[in-house]
């Protein structure tokens, strides 16, 4: 059975940073890759949107309020899906790659994902997440996750 590597990355412009390493590692180990892209809720919940939704909710138009709250989320998901598709084509991995988009904090999303996907052999944390102590607390991660965790970082002098 082929091994499966899980690449965990932060949604946003640098989401693909470190993926070239993961793609190479997957080729070397003859493994498949899953991508888990996690967006911070703050990115989704823009202040004006929340206020607009609140106004509609006060007026009893709950469906419209819900649509407003989910509009940005849906937009982001569509864009992320497009990006991930392009990424898998760039690295010639379209047949082996599967991707998942989540919104919320990294730890709880990753924990839930690995519980529901037991055949993951290794979890690779993207450089954008590895360097951000706010986004990811390795101590907490180690307590919750039982699979080997690999943090990827990029030395300042190295190019992307």
């Amino acid at each position, binding site marked *: 059975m082929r*091994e499966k590597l899980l690449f965990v990355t932060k949604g946003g412009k640098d989401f693909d940073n470190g993926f070239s390493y993961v793609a*190479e*590692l997957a080729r070397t180990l003859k493994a498949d890759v899953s991508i888990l892209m996690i967006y911070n809720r703050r990115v989704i919940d823009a202040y004006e949107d929340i206020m607009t939704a609140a106004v509609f909710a006060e007026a009893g138009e709950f469906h419209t309020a819900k649509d407003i709250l989910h509009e940005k989320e849906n937009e982001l998901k569509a864009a992320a899906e497009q990006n991930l598709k392009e990424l898998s084509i760039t690295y010639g991995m379209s047949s082996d790659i599967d991707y998942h988009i989540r919104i919320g904090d990294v730890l709880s999303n990753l924990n839930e994902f690995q519980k529901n996907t037991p055949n993951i052999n290794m979890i*690779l944390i993207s450089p954008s997440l590895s360097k951000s102590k706010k986004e990811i607390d390795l101590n907490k991660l*180690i307590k919750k996750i*039982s699979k*080997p965790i690999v943090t990827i*970082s990029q030395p300042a002098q190295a*190019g992307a």
Partner: protein
Amino acid sequence: MAINILIAEDEEITVKHLVYALEDEGYSVTSVNNGADAFKKIQQESFDLLIADIKMPGMDGLTLFNKVKDNYPAMEVIIVTGFGSIQSAVDVMRKGAADYITKPFNVDEILLKIDKIKEIKRLEKENMALKVSLGLGRDTSIVAKSLMMKKVIEIISSIMNSDCNVLLTGESGVGKGMVAKLIHYSGLRKDSPFLAVNCATFTEELLASELFGHEKGAFTGAIAKKQGLIDIAHKGSLFLDEIAEMSPSLQAKFLKVLEDREFMRVGGVKPIKADVRFIAATNQNINVLVSDGRFREDLYYRLNVMDIYIPPLRERREDIVPLSKHFLNKQARKANKKIKDISKESLEVLMSYGFPGNVRELENIIERAVILEKTSQITPASLPQTIKLFQVESIDPNRIKKLNEIGKDYAEKVLEHVEGNKSKAAEMLGISRTSLWRILNNN
């Protein structure tokens, strides 16, 4: 090798005589007095040999023989015939009966014929074991320069004359399969088959069928009887990779094999003796799985007679250079290329890399470099660019060490560096010899 024999004979005295003689020789024997009952028995149980009289009430021996050969072609048949029906016996021999015997017969004569069949069955089994193990190879070369791997080799040497079950633990790619082979080929069972199965590759039903085999008709699609790996690995070793992936119900069945040293085929009713050494492996922390109730504690203790932990490559960097050179020789020979060495710069790149995929990753990197390299030594240009661009740090949450353990590991490394000289090691560490002794003896 135990074989199950079915006797179909209507003469009570002959049956009694045969059963007594065969059971006395240690065979498991069942008898019936007509062809129809014999075929019913064959459908219910598994037999290796049928001894059938030609003349029987109802279904005669010839009809029974034809039905058996149509449905159970692997079963051997000895036809018992009266003087007048030798021509019929010759006919069934042509159709594939193992032998025939004329009445009145001598017991020694039939025992000789059974011995011959036993030998054929043994050769068939050996042949099947060879076919199954084909591709596993006998290559058991393990490169061990680091103290940690030398300790692994020491443990393997210490169990050379033992037949105990072994549990191998360690991350993916550290070489658990290779260690399993080394245990087998350096042990008492080295001349018998070494078979391997990855428990994560199969569904529960398929894994059960792979391990125990199945009887014809045991489930949809079981069109013929199949021998399981435990049966084929008789007197040898069976390597169960990713044992933690085995389902709870299969764990219970497998535990019974370890306890009773016998098993039943899927859909079978007769126990079969299992003389197999089990070497299991997992990349998960089995203690956590046991405490979570995902792995049976009793099975864990049965397997864990000897626990061997194979450390990840990042914790035994001294092995990177000799391993790289070993893989270079192997891959250059395979690719028929005259690459003799690895440049200093390339070795520096490899030494500073984290190898999350362990030894397997290193071998694949060298294999690729050998294909790409155009000079007589591996240069950094042939190594994957990404391992130079990114730094990786691996953490195995299952192997988080306490501070005093790290201190002990470090002290051992320093001691290794000064070739076991404790005074020098203590001086380098800035501690007294007594403190060093305490650290090294800290369990």
